[in-house]
C-alpha cells in the first residue's frame, strides 16, 4: 500500500454513485492520477443494485449508528425493513439471482446521458432494454369489483385508435399533443406562460377542457412524485417524452439498463476509469482531512493510509436532507406477461412497464383518501433483476404517515387487477424511505461537493451539469477547449458485429 501514500493524486473521488462514476468516466483518458474509493463494499452508492443477501446487510447497516449508511451519518435512506410472507417464501430463488435496484430510473431516449455514453464508448458494455407501456390503474367504483388497468395512449396514432377515450375527449387530447410538440415557441408560449407556476392539471382543464381522467393520463407521463407538477415543468417533461418516442425503435420513449439500471452504468463508468489507470478501493472512506497547508491536501483513509491529493470530490453530506419518498420493492411469483407485450408490432419487447394509481385513487385503512399518486415500475426477468418466471415491482409515493401501508395495499390491488383468475403473490417486500437534499454543487477550497440527488423516477439531465463542473474543477486549465466525454474505442475493443449480420 506504500505507493498509495507516495503518489500525489490529482483527484481522490469518494463514492461510486452515478455522479462520481460519470466523473470517473469523464476523467478516464485525462492522464490524471485518480484514486477512487467507496466506504461501502459495493459499487453504485444510492443507485446500487443488491442481491437478497446484500439487501439484508444493507437494511442492517441503516440501523447501525456507526455505519456511514445511517441517515444520521449522511446516508440517504432510512426506515428499511424486509418482509417475507411465510406461506410463499419458498418461491424465492437463491440470493444472487436477484438484483434489486435502490433507485430505479427510466432514461428517456433523448437524454444527454445516452449521448454521453455513446460518445465515450461506454455504451458498448451496457445492454439497454425498452420501457414499454404506461398504464393507469383505476380503483373500482364498487368495492366488490377489482381495479382495472388502462393503457395510456402516448402518440397521436395511439389516441386515434384508443377505445378507452370518448371521441369528444380525444379531440382535446389531440390538440394538446400537437401543442406540446412546439410548446416552447411562439405562439404556444403565450398560452402557457401565464399559468407557468400553476399546477399542470389546472392548465389542462382550463386551456384544453380536459376532464379529470385525461388529466391523470398526462400527469402520469410526467412521473411527478406528488402529482402536483407545475405547468412549466410538466410541459417540459411531456415534450421530452413525446420527442423521445421512437428514437431507438418504434413505440417506446425510454430505456432501462439491464442488470440493475443506473447501478450498471455506474459500474461500467468505473471500469472505464480503471482501464485508464485509476486505482479502486472499496470498503474505504475518508476518516479525516487536512487542507490549507500546501497545494495538496492530506486525507486519512479509514484503512489507516494517508494520501495526498490536489482535489477531493465527494457527496455533500453536511447539507440538510428531508425524506422525500417511500419505496417498496416487491418480488412477484409470476412473470406478469401481459404487461410486457410490445406496444407496436415489430418493436423491441419491453422489459419495463409503468403503472400509476392516480392521486386520490387509494385509501388508507382508516378510510382516508391518499392524495398522491403511487407509481409502480414492473420489471420482467429480462432485466436480469429476478429469475425467469418472476417479476419485480418498484413502488414509489411521497413519504408521510401511512405511506408504507398504502404501498402494501397498492401491491395487492395491482396484483388483483393484473390477473383476476389467479392473483399472483408478493413473496418478498423491501420497504425504505429515500431522502433528498441540496440542488447544486458546492466547492470549498480543494473539495468539490456533489449535491445529494433528489429521488426521481426518470433520469434528470441536470445531474450531468454538476458532473461536468467537477470535471472542469479537476482538470483546471486543461479543461478549456477540451472535448468532454468524447473518446475513441480502445484498441482491441472494436465492435465488429456487423460482420455477422
Amino acid at each position, binding site marked *: 500500500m506504500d505507493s498509495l501514500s507516495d503518489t500525489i493524486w490529482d483527484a481522490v473521488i469518494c463514492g461510486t454513485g452515478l455522479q462520481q462514476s460519470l466523473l470517473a468516466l469523464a476523467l478516464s483518458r485525462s492522464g490524471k492520477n485518480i484514486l477512487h474509493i467507496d466506504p461501502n463494499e459495493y459499487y453504485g452508492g444510492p443507485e446500487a443494485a443488491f442481491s437478497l443477501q446484500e439487501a439484508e446487510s444493507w437494511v442492517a447497516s441503516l440501523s447501525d449508528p456507526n455505519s456511514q449508511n445511517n441517515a444520521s451519518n449522511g446516508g440517504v435512506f432510512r426506515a428499511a425493513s424486509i418482509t417475507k410472507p411465510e406461506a410463499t417464501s419458498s418461491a424465492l430463488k437463491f440470493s444472487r439471482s436477484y438484483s434489486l435496484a435502490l433507485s430505479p430510473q427510466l432514461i428517456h431516449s433523448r437524454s444527454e446521458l445516452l449521448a454521453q455514453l455513446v460518445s465515450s464508448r461506454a455504451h458498448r458494455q451496457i445492454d439497454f432494454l425498452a420501457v414499454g407501456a404506461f398504464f393507469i390503474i383505476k380503483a373500482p367504483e364498487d368495492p366488490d369489483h377489482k381495479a382495472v388497468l388502462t393503457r395510456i395512449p402516448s402518440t397521436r396514432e395511439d389516441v386515434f385508435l384508443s377505445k378507452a377515450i370518448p371521441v369528444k375527449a380525444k379531440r382535446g387530447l389531440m390538440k394538446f399533443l400537437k401543442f406540446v410538440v412546439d410548446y416552447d415557441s411562439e405562439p404556444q408560449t403565450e398560452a402557457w406562460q401565464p399559468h407557468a407556476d400553476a399546477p399542470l392539471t389546472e392548465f389542462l382543464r382550463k386551456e384544453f377542457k380536459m376532464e379529470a381522467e385525461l388529466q391523470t393520463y398526462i400527469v402520469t407521463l410526467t412521473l411527478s412524485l406528488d402529482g402536483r407538477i407545475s405547468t412549466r415543468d410538466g410541459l417540459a417533461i411531456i415534450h421530452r417524452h413525446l420527442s423521445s418516442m421512437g428514437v431507438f425503435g418504434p413505440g417506446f420513449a425510454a430505456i432501462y439498463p439491464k442488470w440493475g439500471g443506473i447501478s450498471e452504468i455506474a459500474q461500467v463508468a468505473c471500469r472505464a476509469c480503471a*482501464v485508464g489507470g485509476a486505482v479502486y478501493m472499496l470498503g474505504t472512506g475518508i476518516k479525516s482531512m487536512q487542507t490549507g497547508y500546501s497545494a495538496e491536501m492530506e486525507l486519512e483513509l479509514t484503512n489507516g493510509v494517508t494520501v495526498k491529493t490536489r482535489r477531493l470530490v465527494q457527496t455533500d453530506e453536511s447539507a440538510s436532507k428531508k425524506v422525500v419518498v417511500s419505496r417498496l420493492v416487491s418480488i412477484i411469483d409470476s412473470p406478469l406477461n401481459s404487461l410486457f407485450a410490445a406496444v407496436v408490432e415489430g418493436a423491441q419487447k419491453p422489459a419495463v412497464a409503468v403503472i400509476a394509481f392516480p392521486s386520490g385513487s387509494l385509501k388508507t385503512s382508516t378510510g382516508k383518501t391518499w392524495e398522491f399518486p403511487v407509481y409502480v415500475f414492473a420489471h420482467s426477468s429480462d432485466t*436480469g433483476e429476478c429469475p425467469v418466471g418472476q417479476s419485480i415491482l418498484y413502488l414509489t409515493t411521497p413519504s408521510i404517515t401511512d405511506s408504507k401501508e398504502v404501498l402494501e395495499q397498492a401491491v395487492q390491488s395491482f396484483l388483483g387487477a393484473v390477473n383476476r383468475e389467479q392473483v399472483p403473490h408478493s413473496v418478498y417486500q423491501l420497504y425504505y424511505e429515500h431522502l433528498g437534499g441540496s440542488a447544486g454543487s458546492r466547492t470549498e477550497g480543494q473539495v468539490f461537493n456533489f449535491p445529494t440527488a433528489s429521488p426521481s423516477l426518470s433520469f434528470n439531465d441536470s445531474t450531468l451539469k454538476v458532473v461536468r463542473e467537477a470535471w472542469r474543477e479537476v482538470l483546471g486549465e486543461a479543461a478549456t477547449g477540451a472535448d468532454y466525454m468524447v473518446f475513441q474505442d480502445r484498441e482491441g475493443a472494436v465492435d465488429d458485429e456487423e460482420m455477422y449480420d
Partner: protein
Amino acid sequence: MADSANGPKPSSSVKLVLLGEAAVGKSSLVLRFVNNDFQENKEPTIGAAFLTQKCNLPTRTIKFEIWDTAGQERFASLAPMYYRNAQAALVVYDLTKPTSLVKAKHWVAELQRQASPGIVIALVGNKLDLTNDGSGSGGDAESAGGDDLGDARKVSTEEAKTYSEEEGLLFFETSAKTGFNVTEVFTAIANAIPETSLKSARGVAASHAAGRAEEQRVNLNGPRDPNAKEGCAC
C-alpha cells in the same frame, strides 16, 4: 475474419474475466491469445484492460470480451466490477510459485460465492516453459528437488488437477511464452458455455431467455447514427 466458405455462423459475446496473483502471466496469456505475441518483462497491468477476440467453433463464433485485471492486492476492489455478469473466468497461477495457487483458490472461492451462478471457471497453471514439461525446453534433467536449472516447477500437475476436479473447473497448464495450450484454454471455455446462455447477453437470468435478447436489446447506434455501419461488407 468471417469464414466466408461456411457462410455466416451465429455469433455471441461472452464476457470473460482474468484473475490471479500479480506476475503470473495473465496479460501475457491474453496477449498470446489475441495477438499471438509475447513480451518478455512485460509491465504490470495497471487497473484493468479490455480486449476482444473471436473464437471460431464448428457451429458458432464466440466473441470474447476479455477483462484483464491487475493482480496487485490494492486492485482487489476492481474484481467485483469485472466478474459481475461474467460468463467465464480464467483464474491463473504460476507453476513455479505455490503461493500463487493459494491465491488462485481464493479467487475460485470468491467467484463461486459472488459471481453469476453457472459461470465457467478455468484454472490455468502458466509458465510451463520454465518446467521440464515445457514445450521446446530441452528437458531431460530428472530432478527430485525439482528446482534445478531445468525444472522450476513447484506445483504438481496432480495437485492442481485434483483440486480442479473437486471444484468442477476446467484445468490447463500453459505457456504464454511458447503459446502452448493457450488457444486450447479459450476454445475449451467457449465449448463449455451452455448453448442456452449464448445469443443472449450474460448471466443466469439471460440464459433462460435464450434467443430473445437480440430482439430486445436496444441499439443506441440505431437508425439515427449513419456511422454505425461503416466498414460493413454486407
